[in-house]
């Protein structure tokens, strides 16, 4: 899932600026699960902003609403009236949610309430860790299902580098060395030979480096069917 963190209140206040009517929009999917932008967080953010604005002597009307998925336009339709009435929409969705709101409501001024961090999972309650870099050319089949692109600090394809120590990465004792994990796993499964081939330079074009990405499936497109 997409893992995000809420911005500090001071930054939210700055983003809202002088607006008198603020609509906080939560999202019921990924950011609900990571406790950053669900219904509860949206309500708390709205309350906090109301209280803070009153203390600042510039009281604002801050309301909140949460949709099931901010990244799909059909879920946004129900917000049309509220968005139209707001001076600023504070999205507690991920970066996709913010942009979905902008694209669906071109006249609205939408600002982000979260910092979208990574694609990952909770490793324990209260801890989330990155697992995928969405590089567009999955190599998990070569590495025993542990991703060095997302989890090696240097995204090495022929690791481990010399900075691996006692199972952790040189950058931080709390960051496991992905290549140590890979070697251990393949060794345990008698598949270490998989790592002995030289992996050629990666095709980064499939990643963000190739420019913004789009996937088109003609078998699913309604427009294509009409042709």
């Amino acid at each position, binding site marked *: 899932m997409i893992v995000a963190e809420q911005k500090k209140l001071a930054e939210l206040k700055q983003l809202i600026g002088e607006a008198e009517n603020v609509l906080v929009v939560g999202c019921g999917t990924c950011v609900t699960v990571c406790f950053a932008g669900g219904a509860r967080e949206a309500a708390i953010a709205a309350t906090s902003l109301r209280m803070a604005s009153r203390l600042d002597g510039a009281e604002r009307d801050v309301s909140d609403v949460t949709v099931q998925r901010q990244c799909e336009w059909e879920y946004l339709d129900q917000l049309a009236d509220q968005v139209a009435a707001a001076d600023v929409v504070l999205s507690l969705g991920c970066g996709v949610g913010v942009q979905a709101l902008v694209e669906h409501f071109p006249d609205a001024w939408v600002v982000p309430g979260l910092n979208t961090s990574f694609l990952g999972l909770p490793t324990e309650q209260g801890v989330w860790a990155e697992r995928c870099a969405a590089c567009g050319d999955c190599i998990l089949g070569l590495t025993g299902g542990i991703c060095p692109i997302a989890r090696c600090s240097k995204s090495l394809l022929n690791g481990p580098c010399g900075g691996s120590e006692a199972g952790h990465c*040189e950058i931080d004792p709390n960051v496991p060395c992905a290549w140590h994990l890979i070697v251990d796993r393949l060794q345990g499964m008698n598949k270490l030979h998989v*790592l002995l081939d*030289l992996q050629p*330079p*990666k095709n980064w074009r499939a990643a963000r480096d190739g420019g913004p990405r789009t996937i088109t499936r003609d078998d699913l497109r309604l427009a294509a069917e009409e042709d």
Partner: protein
Amino acid sequence: MTTPDTKNGYLAGSNLERVLRAGHFAVTGELGPPQSADAAVIREKAALLHGVCEAVNITDNQTAIVRMSSIGAGTIVLQEGLEPVIQMTCRDRNRLAIQADLLGAYALGMRNLLCLTGDHQTFGNHPTSKNVFDIDSLQLVRLVADMRDREVFQCGDPFKGEAPRFFVGAAAAPFADPIDFRPYRLAKKVAAGADFIQTQLVYDVPAFARYMEKVRELGLAEKTYILAGVGPLKSPGMARYMKNNVPGILVPDELIERMSAAGAPWAGKGKDELTKEDKRARAEAWQQEGIQICVELIQQLREIPGVAGVHIMAIEWEEAVRPIVEGAGLLPRPVVPAAETAAT
């Protein structure tokens, strides 16, 4: 080793390659460029290393701190009559920049290249920068070998003119984790095309001997020249720091004790009791012991089959290299003229 296919019988014909091919025990040094544009610093350090080693590594933004570029400093080193080993990391350049810089380095006369991954930028003085890691060090080895042996760019296109011919090096960290995989990683580097290897600092000779045994078992010692990394300890504190804080460096307690013993005459005194003279004398005693230990390490490493030379890392203490090389009985350095073995 790749079969030389040039007219003169060498892959690159660098001094380092000639000395190694002639079967001499090779010595390389290291020179850290300044955090400034001061050419004089390079010239001074080059003078200290002149005549005591075949070639000197010029570090590439080592520990991710911005310094004069390796190729820039290497050009000055060449002017001073010393042969550089250009270090190149994958941290700061993509494959376009790497290849462009390699063409420039070759045109400027550089013939040795050490391919490195590079320390992560979080360690350096620009921790908020973006890293590159478009390719890794093994892919870089292959890229440079292909430039020489297949005369192509990484993309497969041929050169429009002269191809750069480097003597290609890679690093090895024999004691870094996961330790069992290290000989295999070396095997990959050799398969990728590494002509020579420089290792991380070795202080634990028996542990290194065990590593070399595995390396020989894999048949790597015949395929590449392995230069064991050594460096003089400056103080017991430095020894302890490396033991505890630097990944992949084993410092036996016995060596730390030897360093401490060297400072024993001053050990009883508290910090305030030590005069400036005391401190200087103690530092000197430590340094003497550090150099002596380094000499002994070289002598022991030389006995290990498959060790083709040593790489002496004495950054910011270049003065120590001459006494070390001299103490190890490795002076004068051999001279192998380019023409002498041209027929091989």
